[in-house]
Structure formats: structure tokens, C-alpha cells
């Protein structure tokens, strides 16, 4: 029953909460099924290389500018926030460690994912949704081409790879931004900053921690954006709603995963 129905006002609160929970579990279940089916196709190498390359270019290469700009500023912001504390205790040597720790483990993966979600995820949902309403997905099926193998598997792979790779250079750029901000605002020499970064308090585990998160965020974003794209009903307004739902679900999922992955891999 839609909210616009004349009975909407009479639906009890419990009914509406129950209905929302039911809808949410339906979406979560649908995404899980889609994920399994797509991973199965990737495992059997049943996916289209051309589509993969096109999407790698469209999603990965074309996302570079926004990732570069965001990353540089994220590093600088980390330093700005730490500045009063660092000055108060004179802990200039720890600045590199502090920036590195927060960027590598948390800020890098999270902000890269959110930026790319806004760009790549939304675009992906809109494109797939349009293909659904214009019957292009049916046209693929008619040509005996499996849409999950042809369209979805390459996109999933491209999104996960884009995120992991973007995270690697976002980390580097964010630390670069942090070093510049440290020098400009606090007069911390690059050597001191670098020393804090490499003195042994940080190790490869911190980088891996961030990269694992990125891979999970990529999966989340890929599945959410594809699921809502494929589920579009009802023309252009349907595509609009799907893009909306996809972006919200990706972001929510990313934060929830962030919590659990941080917790599990410590």
C-alpha cells in the first residue's frame, strides 16, 4: 500500500515501522542474491572485457581529478584539526604519525568512497535504470546475452578496483597535503613530518587496513548502485528515485561496513 493511499493516515505506527523493516530486509536480501550471482559469474570469468575496459576508464580514470582534490584537502584538514593539540604539547614529531594514522586507516578509504559514490555510483544507477526503462536489458536477454555477466560483473569489478586504486593514491596525496599544511601552518619541516610517518609507529598493516576497507566499500557501492538500477520501474521518475535510493543505500552501507570491518580486522 503506497503512502498516497487514502488509508495511509490510518496505518498504525507499528504497521509502518514493520513495513519499513520488511522493505529494508527485502532490499538487503535482493542485494545479497545479486552479489552471489555476480561473484559466481566473475569466478567463471563470464564477463565482458570490453565493458570492463570501458568502465575502468569511465569510472577509474575519470574520477582522478575529484579524488586528487579531495585527498589533498583531507590531509590538510587532518593537520588543521590536530594543530592546537600539537602546538600545546609541542608534539611536532608526532604530526606525521597522527596524520598518517587517521588518513591511512579511516579518512582515506571513507572519503574516497563517498566521493566516488556520488560520482560513479549515481552514474551507474542512472545508466542501468535507463537501460531497464528503454528495454535495453531485455534486448540483451533476447540476444541470448546474460545481462549480469555482460553488464553487472564488469561494473562490479571496475568499481572495486577503482576504489582500491584510488585509495592508494588518495593516501599518498593526502599525506602530501598534510606535509605541506604542517610546514605552512606549523613550520614543521618535511623531514620531521616524514620521520613521524616512518618511525615505526605506522606499518604496512595500517595501509592494508585501509585497502581492505576500500574493497568492501567498493563492493557495497557496486551492489547497491547496480541493484537499484536494475530494479527501476516506471520511466524517468523511476530512474530518479533509484539514483536517490542507490546513493543513500551506498553511503549508509559504507558507514555500517566501516564500523564492522574496523571492529573485525582491528
Amino acid at each position, binding site marked *: 500500500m503506497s503512502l498516497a493511499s487514502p488509508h495511509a493516515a490510518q496505518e498504525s505506527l507499528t504497521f509502518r515501522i514493520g513495513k519499513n523493516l520488511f522493505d529494508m530486509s527485502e532490499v538487503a536480501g535482493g542485494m545479497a542474491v545479486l552479489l552471489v550471482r555476480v561473484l559466481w559469474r566473475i569466478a567463471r570469468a563470464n564477463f565482458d572485457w570490453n565493458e570492463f575496459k570501458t568502465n575502468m576508464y569511465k569510472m577509474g580514470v575519470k574520477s582522478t581529478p575529484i579524488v586528487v582534490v579531495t585527498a589533498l584537502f583531507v590531509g590538510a584538514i587532518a593537520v588543521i584539526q590536530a594543530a592546537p593539540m600539537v602546538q600545546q604539547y609541542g608534539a611536532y614529531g608526532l604530526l606525521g604519525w597522527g596524520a598518517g594514522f587517521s588518513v591511512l586507516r579511516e579518512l582515506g578509504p571513507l572519503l574516497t568512497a563517498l566521493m566516488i559514490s556520488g560520482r560513479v555510483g549515481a552514474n551507474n544507477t542512472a545508466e542501468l535504470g535507463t537501460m531497464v526503462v528503454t528495454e535495453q536489458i531485455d534486448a*540483451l536477454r533476447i540476444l541470448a546475452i546474460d545481462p549480469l555477466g555482460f553488464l553487472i560483473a564488469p561494473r562490479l569489478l571496475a568499481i572495486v578496483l577503482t576504489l582500491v586504486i584510488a585509495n592508494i593514491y588518495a593516501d599518498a596525496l593526502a599525506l602530501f597535503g598534510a606535509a605541506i599544511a604542517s610546514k605552512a601552518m606549523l613550520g614543521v619541516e618535511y623531514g620531521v613530518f616524514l620521520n613521524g610517518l616512518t618511525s615505526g609507529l605506522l606499518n604496512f598493516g595500517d595501509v592494508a587496513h585501509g585497502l581492505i576497507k576500500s574493497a568492501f566499500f567498493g563492493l557495497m557501492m557496486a551492489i547497491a548502485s547496480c541493484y537499484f538500477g536494475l530494479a527501476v520501474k516506471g520511466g524517468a521518475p523511476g530512474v530518479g528515485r533509484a539514483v536517490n535510493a542507490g546513493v543513500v543505500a551506498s553511503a549508509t552501507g559504507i558507514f555500517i561496513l566501516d564500523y564492522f570491518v574496523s571492529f573485525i580486522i582491528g
Partner: protein
Amino acid sequence: MISFRNIHKSFGPKNVLQGVSFDVHDGEVFFIIGASGVGKSVLIKHLVGLLYPDQGEIWLDGQEISRFDELQMMAVRRKCAMVFQHSTLFDSMTCAQNVALPLRKHKNLKGRSAEHEAIKLLEKVHMEAFADRFPAELGDGMRKRVAIARALTLDPQYILFDEPTTSLDPVNARRVDKLIRELSDTLGVTSIVVSHDLVSIFGIADRIVMLYKGQVRLLGTREEFRNTTDGVVEQFTNGYAEGPMDL
């Protein structure tokens, strides 16, 4: 041979097909006609697993296919091609790439040779000059012709045409008619053509079925349709504004 047996299909409260039965023989050019919204597109989509009947059976070459799953349907689709009413070309690809896609996927042709084959197919519908254009740059009638070329790629035994000549100019419409007739006469391809185009219908049909109110109103040859005394069929095939038809 294709056989629809007592097909029922509803969308919510709307009963579109209410017991449609007829056979289509091998090699014939078979037309489905009927008023807009009667369920012609819905009916042919059942044959390739885009829709499933609520009740009834569909037989294709001795197999009952209406309960096939997606995987089993893939085999059906390879011998039964379809041209959609709205063409539905992939708009991220050029015309040649659209036609080349099934060749790459199913005939293992690589880039160059797939495109080469694609151009040959585009020549059949006189669209080779537009091979490198994107669908969005073309008119409706041109897109439809590219879609026809794409449907021919897998050498199908059956082709479903959903209004192939609608929005084509008369010259190209007759060329498409000729192509459909030739496919049947020279290669033995069976064509099911949904159409409102009276010139096509009375020009190339072997047999015609008219759907009316969810059921078969008349099934017969061109002659039988010309000589019918059924007022509804007469009104429809002559395009009279007034008559017994209830739309």
C-alpha cells in the same frame, strides 16, 4: 512450429490475453493484427521468455517452453530473434557495434571481422552509411532498420517483428517487406509480424490472425480477410472510423 495454446495473461486487474490459441507453421510469414493495446506485443514477448503466461502452453519445435527458466530460454532465444517495437538499440554503442555484439558473443568473431560482418548485415537494410553513428543521432525508422539487422545476426529460424515498418518511409517499408518475404522464401525463416501497416499485411502475409478483446477474432489467409463478413474485422482492415468495433 510455434503453437500458442489457451494463453491467459493479466497485469493486475487488467485481463489482456484471455485464451489465445493458434499455430504458426514453419517458413510462413504470419501477421498478428489488432487494435492498439489488445496485447500483440505482450503475446510475442511470451515466446522468448520476457513474459510468462498466467495459464496456457507455448510449444516451440516440440518443446513446451512457457515454464523454461532463464538459462533454458537462452537456447530458445538463439533460434528465435526479436525486433522490439521501440528498436531498443544499445545507445552506448554505434550501429555497427550494436550489430557486431551478438557476433562477438556467440560466433566468437573478433573486433575487425565482427564489424565487417555487421556492415554486411547493415547493407541488407540499407543502413551501411550510418555504421559509425550512435542510435541517438538517428531517426526512428533508421533505428528500426538497424534493429532488424541486429536480429539477423544469429541466423535465427524464427524472427518476431514488432511493427517493423511503423515510422519507416514507404520506400524503406517496402524494402523491409521484401526482406521479410525473402527470408521466408529463400532461407525458410518463419516470421511473426505484428503490424498496423495495411500495405505490408495485404502485400506479404501468408496468414493473418486478428486479436480482439483478448481472443482470436479471425485466423486466415489474405483472401479470407478480404472476403470476411465479420463486421469487426472489416472495420479494422479497412480502417473505418465508424463500425461495430468496441475499442
